[in-house]
């Protein structure tokens, strides 16, 4: 897998800037002659692998530890407990364990490697338009214009905040993750265990992961206890069975998890049933503590079943960042003299790279 972060600008590889008087090159051809994909110029703090197919946060947190714990515990279970239990109980045990393990690993990887619902940053024209609207909102001369906007959602006033990094008013339920430096739709939280934000697009993967993980750990724990019980019944007693049998190996790991994971499952089940996010719950956005008249959650359907279906089985929203698309210029062919260009000329993403290269040139000159 390629680890492609922002490429270091090599001054020796830079070519001279293309003069504006020449006809425009084909939209995808750059100075290096290779069309760049959008993930290569992505402004957030993310890493991309497999040519943009996989996205993770820059700080992967303890994802390798999570994966390692799951695989090690499961391996110990299969090696030390399954043969005995297959011989004494049923052959279904490794099958169920295997299925649960695959489910857990797949949903973990889906949570970690998918786009959580990142909102692309505003284009320069859009940012300028918003600035114009803020300035025109009738503020007095000595006070800075407000950077919030109030909207009415199902007869309830919701404040939209302006994001200074992404240069836009954040849609409802969107929050800016400081670790990933992105605005994420329906932001729940940044989970270090999965090494990614949990948001609109991967919340269902995350929920599936924690539910199946709780089943897996409970299953392994139960099987280990059963194994030790059966061994102790053969006359040796529990303590001796613990000392002798390798069945004890998965015990510590599978003991920890049933006490941490089910609490998460219960909490997130409550969030799903009330169509809330962790972020909203922590901030108390809809708890009515300010004594407002109607401050219930405007996004809830007021029916537990409907809320669950909408959050977990609703339509899968598309990724908005188009990481495998090519960086294109969307302007019509430019006029020969730059002075005659109209005020609002659409810029492509490569302008950022060009200005960085010019800066690099001046530094190395």
């Amino acid at each position, binding site marked *: 897998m390629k680890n492609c972060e922002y490429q270091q600008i090599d001054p020796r590889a830079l070519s001279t800037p293309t003069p504006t008087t020449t006809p425009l090159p084909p939209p995808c051809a750059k100075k290096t002659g290779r069309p760049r994909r959008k993930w290569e110029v992505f402004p957030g703090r993310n890493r991309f692998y497999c040519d943009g197919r996989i996205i993770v946060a820059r700080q992967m947190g303890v994802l390798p530890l999570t994966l390692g714990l799951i695989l090690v515990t499961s391996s110990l279970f299969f090696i030390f407990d399954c043969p005995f239990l297959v011989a004494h109980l049923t052959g279904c045990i490794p099958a169920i364990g295997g299925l649960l393990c695959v489910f857990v690993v797949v949903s973990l990887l889906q949570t970690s490697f998918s786009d959580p619902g990142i909102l692309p940053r505003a284009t320069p024209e859009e940012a300028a338009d918003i600035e114009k609207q803020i300035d025109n909102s009738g503020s007095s001369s000595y006070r800075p214009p407000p950077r919030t906007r109030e909207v009415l959602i199902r007869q309830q006033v919701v404040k939209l905040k302006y994001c200074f990094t992404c240069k836009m008013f954040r849609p409802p339920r969107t929050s800016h993750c400081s670790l990933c430096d992105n605005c994420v739709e329906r932001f729940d939280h940044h989970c270090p265990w999965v090494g990614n934000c949990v948001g609109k697009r991967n919340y269902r993967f995350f929920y599936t992961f924690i539910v199946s993980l709780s089943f897996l750990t409970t299953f392994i724990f139960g099987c280990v206890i059963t194994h030790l019980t059966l061994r102790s019944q053969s006359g040796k007693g529990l303590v001796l069975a613990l000392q002798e049998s390798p069945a004890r190996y998965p015990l510590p790991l599978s003991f920890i998890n049933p006490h941490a994971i089910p609490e998460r499952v219960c909490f997130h089940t409550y969030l799903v049933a009330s169509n809330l996010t962790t972020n909203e719950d922590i901030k108390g956005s809809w708890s009515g503590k300010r004594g407002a008249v109607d401050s219930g959650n405007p996004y809830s359907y007021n029916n537990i079943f409907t809320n669950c279906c909408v959050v*977990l089985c*609703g*339509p899968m929203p*598309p990724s908005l960042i188009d990481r495998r698309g090519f960086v294109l210029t969307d302007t019509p062919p430019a006029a020969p003299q730059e002075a005659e260009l*109209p005020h609002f000329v659409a810029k492509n993403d490569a302008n950022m790279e060009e200005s960085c290269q010019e800066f690099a040139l001046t530094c190395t000159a």
Partner: protein
Amino acid sequence: MATEFHTLQEMQHSASLATKVFIQRDYSEGTVCKFQTKFPSELDSRVERTLFEDTVKTLNNFYAEAEKIGGQSYLEGCMACATAYVIFLCMETRYEKVLKKISRYILEQNEKIYAPRGLLITDPIERGMRVIEISIFEDRSSSGSSSGSSSTSSSSGR
């Protein structure tokens, strides 16, 4: 005076971009994708109000169809959950199918209605589904006063 362009290519070759207008999202019904149908003043002299409103309403209907919560979406969701969501890697979701319909509709609207009037609608998916961006073009061969007037009208706010 309205600038006449017959094709998108003709517009791109002979026009220069004067300004852009942004149609914002309408959040009155929650986080579902819906755009405001308020007619921007910059388009007053460029396109008929009814045509513009029809375009935006049709787009809103498309997005409502994509985000509709019903039997089909539940079936898709449950099937995906049962396969640990691996099925999303293999098949096109209903949302993606509707997005393709939207792209075709926008292309058709641009070719039939907006390009002949010197306008170009950008697919909202390319702007993070936050805005409908409408680019206003001026014919380069027209006099400087027309581009001057469009700049003044664009600076007058919404």
